[in-house]
């Protein structure tokens, strides 16, 4: 394809990406480097149905004048990134120098909101990824060996968790695992413990959310692998059979190598998705036991006083996290591409 044609071809999507992805990210970075202008506070009497009282309030005019002068607010450099609600350099080094043991240091760090969220986010990501890959692959193999009349129905049923809106899916599960819900009651019966509650302890909440995540994402892996299976060359499989390869050997030495690029693809997409885990935390009312980076951003923006700088900083840190997470996979792909 001549260069000119190529550029004309990608220009529309290139411009759209610049406008709707690149520019907003630049704006987020700029905002994360600023904090709001200092508020001018005055005290005046305010009255209402319950009487009058001296209260502090913002001097609107003086503050508006400051905002007109510096519309972006005060430049704060990476101050927001390093403050207590984000990377918390000071608090982490204080926890290190004041530690009585390594466990004590970990406790100190885990008490900081950003690290607490990061640990859950990473746990969710790394625990769910292998399950999603393995289950998706197993399901694809199983469905592929079904009679063709059954396939359509089974594929549709398998895709359901992926089709359901994440928030609805997690709400449905939330009610089912309630102490009075069908799953909650069954678990109490099985473990013979009427006090058992999946929502009360952090460990059980984590397990619940991760299980939900696997349930929700496996269909994606399944459908990609299933599509891939349709392209595995029949001749190779047949010759393997003639050579006396068992079903397991055919899967291990023919199918898996053939689908390897798809594994990388599914892995990439799921890592990215999982690192931005958010809906189940809201759906399960789980913020007491589990928070994620995306949840912190939501929390900064869903309050009466919105903290754009803070949300911006967490967003940038999330983007950096995704890049670090994907780097090994991308590097591997690039190496294979070079050697090929």
């Amino acid at each position, binding site marked *: 394809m001549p260069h000119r044609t190529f550029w004309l071809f990608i220009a529309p999507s290139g411009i759209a990406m610049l406008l709707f992805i690149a520019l907003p990210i630049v704006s987020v970075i700029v905002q994360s480097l600023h904090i709001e202008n*200092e508020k001018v506070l005055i005290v005046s009497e305010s009255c209402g149905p319950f009487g009058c009282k001296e209260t502090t309030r913002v001097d609107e005019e003086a503050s508006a004048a400051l905002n007109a002068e510096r519309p972006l607010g005060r430049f704060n450099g990476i101050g927001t990134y390093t403050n207590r609600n984000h990377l918390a350099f000071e608090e982490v080094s204080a926890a290190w120098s004041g530690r009585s043991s390594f466990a004590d240091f970990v406790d100190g760090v885990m008490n900081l909101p950003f690290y607490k969220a990061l640990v859950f986010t990473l746990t969710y990501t790394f625990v769910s990824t292998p399950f999603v890959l393995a289950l998706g692959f197993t399901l694809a193999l199983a469905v592929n060996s079904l009679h063709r009349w059954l396939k359509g129905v089974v594929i549709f049923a398998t895709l359901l968790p992926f089709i359901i809106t994440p928030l609805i899916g997690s709400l449905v599960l939330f009610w089912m695992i309630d102490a009075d819900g069908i799953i909650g009651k069954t678990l109490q019966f099985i473990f013979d413990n009427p006090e058992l509650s999946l929502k009360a302890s952090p460990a059980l909440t984590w397990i619940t959310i991760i299980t939900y995540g696997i349930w929700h994402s496996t269909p994606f892996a399944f459908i990609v692998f299933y599509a891939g299976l349709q392209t595995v060359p029949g001749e190779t499989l047949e010759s393997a059979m003639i050579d006396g390869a068992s079903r397991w050997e055919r899967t291990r030495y023919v199918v898996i190598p053939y689908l390897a690029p798809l594994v990388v693809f599914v892995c990439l997409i799921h890592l990215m998705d999982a690192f931005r885990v958010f809906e189940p935390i809201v759906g399960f009312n789980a913020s007491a036991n589990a928070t994620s980076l995306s949840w912190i951003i939501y929390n900064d923006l869903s309050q009466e006083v919105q903290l754009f700088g803070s949300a911006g900083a967490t967003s940038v840190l999330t983007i950096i996290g995704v890049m670090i997470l994907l780097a090994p996979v991308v590097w591997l792909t690039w190496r294979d591409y070079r050697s090929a």
Partner: protein
Amino acid sequence: MKFNQTLVASAIALSAGGAFALASSNAIADCAISVDTAEISVLGNEFPAIQAIVGAAEGCSTDGVTFASNLTKEHREIQVAALTADPSEYTVAVVANSTLVTLMNDGLVRPLNALIDEHAPDLPDNLKITVGDDVMAIAFMANAQHLMYRQDILEQAGVEVPTSYEEVLAAAAAIKEAGLIEYPLTGTYKSGWNLAEEFVNMLMGFGGDMFMDGSAEPNLDSDEAKAALAMMKSLTEFMNPDFLTFDSTIAAAEFEQGKAAMMNMWGSRAGSVLDDEGAAEGVVENIGFASAPTVGGGDVPASTLWWDGFTIATNTSDENAVASFQAMVSSVSDEVANANADAAVWLMAGYEPTQAAEGVLATASAGAQPYPMLPYIGLMHTALGNELVEFLQGSESAEQALADTEAAYRAAAEEAGFL
């Protein structure tokens, strides 16, 4: 915290069975909009009282005056952005103590003095929310968390209706001991906003303060704050272990299904608790309402008083503002209040309180304090809602939880320009 005598005076009138008292007449202008063309659009919270007010205001629309409303639980999240736009997305924002300050911080709502002088000169003073010399909002209802209890269960356990949290604990222990209910208490302890509100209630009961006098400096390293946390912890020991996921909807459902005997619940829920929807047999007729309990030997109920009212956006045309004001103020009437008597504790002079209003009125007349209208309170509320969780889960000391809250608040307040 000094209040003038109005509160006391109105409180006495309340406890005498009257309405939130104000001598002035209730002759508020009929629904007559004086401009020919205008757009009215309302943003507000979603519960029956606000639906009633906005529904009544909608009746004022004419051929030239259009009316639209967006009543949603997520109103707080969109109101700043929606009113910052010029022209603003909404001409009216229905607000409460806490949300009004957020809008005022950015000058997003206009003073109503001129509109009142011209279009509603008879508006009683107790409905006006004034800040300095400006009337910033018109209040129409009061709200507070107060005690809801099951008379039959208390009788079976042989205890009186508790008036203090110490008595609540004793009553809960008696109920549990008698094997009547496994988790006698429930409440709005969901991590986040609800949990923080319970702490503010309790701190008020102990007479504590969240801030240093007249500044945005946090002041949580106090005996009152620790005592408030300790009391919350003791209460949660009588609650379903899932309490950190309980908001007012879930807590009210537990109570209606007979799974709890006492809760500190919003007055605005009283109507729906008393109706016969969703309740187990034998619950509704045994429900009683009382003032929020006191705590630690204090004489002020551990609760905060709230009002809901409407404001008019700054960034809208004067025609829209006039039409919006006239439509909304016409719905702040005795007729609307009495037609929806169970929906809220209305502030209108001619409102006749029903059983559903007893708890809020008792709490107000016992001298509960209003939720502080401070520009930085939202940041403190958020920090409390996130950082107190670990203490209630038992993985952190009260001192640590309060220190964490201060640190989280400080970082946020520095970013927002308050410190």
